[in-house]
């Protein structure tokens, strides 16, 4: 059989390229003679974009699947722990306006509707917030604590967590692991042309010094240039700027004042007049950036806002301006070419969707890698369906953050609430949630990216009310509610008294390392 899939060529050497090459090589034994060969062609002259310093908890299983030690990863990628996001000044912009989207699910989630009981409580101004009443993680973050202790094994947790990482270091780290441990062949060369077969498949990519690099499947990880899927196959780009207005980022790296400064164990996202500022704590510096809509703010205004946020050191630091074209390709897999990463699309960094989409793509390609060319089109169609669904759901979820805001200080916020800018699918969900909390049955696909719990945290964190007055009988499981509210108080006390400071744990990981068990 001549149409066996025996060689995969990944074009592009950023995080997307290495993660995809790594997953494929690990699963399909690239090291062995009878495995699938994985070749990665990286241009020596194109710098990587290096966005995406926030991950999801999925990164733990991704690293595990690649056979990477968590200790090595933390040591070499300047990584720290992330326990969700704190959204400040998103609701009304006042100083004490904040809420959390933690990574730990609400107590008893899936067993009963604790959100309904929370909504039904007599709300007094001093009552705990939704996330504080149903989950212990906000308290852990507010106290600057880590999600585990040095005694917790690698990748295990006390509180669910993801990472903040230095994306430049992460790409280098992945490259080393993929080439030395997983058998990925690394070619440093520029791709100058593409050769095709009669059926339109790519037969090889032409390089300057290494000639034609042949393959059976080509993965386009060429970043925004989308060399194979966009330029070669001319798959159109579907913009979502009419939904998500942010189109520019000003990014800056802020050093800590001293090496003992606390490291926040959550992403801090602070609403501004025409967008929001991300603040991500790594071991040796913070990554900070203002993403804004250029329709609603000049660059000069944006710089002034970022300068005010960063403080005195701002003038001595370099600001990088990154254009953001929110949207994605109309399909991602065409013939024998699939795009992963920025070549497939990009959304603003709210909720850190970039790396998780890379992980999910790499996982699906490696798990469902077709054995022969004959069946590739079936997988391609499923891949396209799955990821179109995922992109749409992520766009809905990001938009949710904007439509619940009550800010009126700039047209950026009021325009965001214009019904014409809200996708129909989100409008439908919002209509249902007027009478009940988001539940698992709202999300029936097994390809869901955000669970119902995430929608609950955003809705009730931002002051949305679901009206259960017509269905008061839904609240008869009082014991369930009391048990789980009480359980949350207990777990909060326990977590706060046993977990170390985030910086302290990271120092210990560097000095001693985690055990694997």
């Amino acid at each position, binding site marked *: 059989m001549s149409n066996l899939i025996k060689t995969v060529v990944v074009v592009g050497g950023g995080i997307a390229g290495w993660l995809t090459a790594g997953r494929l090589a690990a699963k399909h034994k690239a090291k062995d003679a009878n495995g699938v060969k994985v070749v990665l062609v990286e241009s020596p002259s194109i710098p990587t974009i290096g966005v995406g310093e926030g991950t999801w908890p999925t990164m733990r299983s991704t690293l595990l699947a690649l056979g990477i030690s968590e200790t090595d990863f933390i040591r070499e990628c300047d990584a720290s722990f992330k326990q969700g996001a704190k959204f400040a000044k998103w609701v009304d912009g006042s100083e004490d306006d904040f809420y959390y989207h933690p990574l730990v699910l609400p107590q008893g989630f899936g067993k009963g509707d604790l959100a309904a009981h929370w909504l039904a409580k007599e709300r007094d101004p001093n009552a705990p917030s939704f996330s504080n009443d149903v989950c212990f993680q906000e308290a852990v973050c507010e106290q600057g604590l880590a999600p585990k*202790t*040095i*005694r*917790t094994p690698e990748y295990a947790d006390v509180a669910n967590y993801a990472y903040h990482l230095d994306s430049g270091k992460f790409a280098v780290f992945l490259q080393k692991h993929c080439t030395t441990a997983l058998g990925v062949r690394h070619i440093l060369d520029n791709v100058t042309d593409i050769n095709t077969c009669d059926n339109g498949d790519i037969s090889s990519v032409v390089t300057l010094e290494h000639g034609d690099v042949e393959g059976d499947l080509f993965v386009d990880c060429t970043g925004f240039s989308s060399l194979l899927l966009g330029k070669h196959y001319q798959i159109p780009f579907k913009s979502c700027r009419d939904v998500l207005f942010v189109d520019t980022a000003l990014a800056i790296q802020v050093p800590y004042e001293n090496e003992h400064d606390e490291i926040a164990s959550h992403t801090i996202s602070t609403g501004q007049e025409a967008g929001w500022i991300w603040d991500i704590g790594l071991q040796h510096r913070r990554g900070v950036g203002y993403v804004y809509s250029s329709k609603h703010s000049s660059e000069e205004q944006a710089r002034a806002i970022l300068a005010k946020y960063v403080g005195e050191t701002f003038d001595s630091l370099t600001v990088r301006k990154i254009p953001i074209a929110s949207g994605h390709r109309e399909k991602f897999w065409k013939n024998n070419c699939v795009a992963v990463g920025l070549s497939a699309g990009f959304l603003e960094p709210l909720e850190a969707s970039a790396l998780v989409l890379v992980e999910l793509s790499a996982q699906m390609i490696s798990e469902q890698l077709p054995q022969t060319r004959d069946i590739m089109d079936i997988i391609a169609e499923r891949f396209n369906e799955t990821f179109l669904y995922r992109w749409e759901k992520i766009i809905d979820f990001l938009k949710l953050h904007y439509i619940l805001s009550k800010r009126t200080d700039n047209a950026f916020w009021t325009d965001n609430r214009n019904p014409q800018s809200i996708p129909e699918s989100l409008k439908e969900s919002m209509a249902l949630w007027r009478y009940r909390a988001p539940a698992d049955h709202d999300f029936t696909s097994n390809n869901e990216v955000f669970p119902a719990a995430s929608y609950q945290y955003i809705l009730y964190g931002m002051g949305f009310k679901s009206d259960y007055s017509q269905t008061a009988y839904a609240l008869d499981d009082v014991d369930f509610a009391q048990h789980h509210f009480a359980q949350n108080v207990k777990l909060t006390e326990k977590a706060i008294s046993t977990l170390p400071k985030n910086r302290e744990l990271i120092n*210990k990981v560097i000095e*001693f*390392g985690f*055990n*694997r*068990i």
Partner: protein
Amino acid sequence: MTQLVAVDNKNHLNTRVDLSKVAQHGAALHLVPVVLSEFIHLAVQYPIVLTKNGNTGQFVFSAMLGFEKGENLFWQQEQWQGLYVPLQIRRQPFFIEASIHQNNNEQHNNELTVCLNTESPALSNLVGEALFEVDGQESAYFRDVKANLSLLIMGEKENELLLKSLTSMELIQPISLDITFANQSSTKLTGLYTIDQDKLGSLTNDQVISLYHTGLLPSIYAMVTSLGQVHALIDLKNKRLN
């Protein structure tokens, strides 16, 4: 309280140690760190397990003396009721302190000093074993103390070697054990680790031979056998509850 001072024959010429009180140092310990050279002696009475150091997260070999913090089931009527008292207890109230001295040649020497915990209940000027003879020579007892301390120091290195082998061969697994005592109270043992016997049984020939040649095999089997002592420990606890 632990107050350490270096031992010398001027300040401690008249110092004595009441041996009957030494074991008091372990009266409230439920786990005591142990070294490989004593595994064979320990295994006939105590479960030898691995625990994680709370500060570093690294594995430590320990003998189990009780089921909860502060509980030493071998401490009864102000005495250690055991055939063998672990070195970590017997070496009390002495410690080794490593101090780095800089001599004239700018060379760093790692010097070990024997120190004494002046707050120890076993110290006395009247009864017990003297550290020095009247002429300032070290007593046979003190030479014995130093021998025990050096056993502990050598033991640390041997422990490290064993731990390295256990980790690299993935032979460590958590113990999961629910115990119900005679009074129906129950406890769930957590934070304890032992040898994974299935993995031990499926080592490659090369691995077994390497364990044999490094002399670690008997210690591994001593750990496996010693786990049976958990039942003896439960028995002691039940007797205490009655």
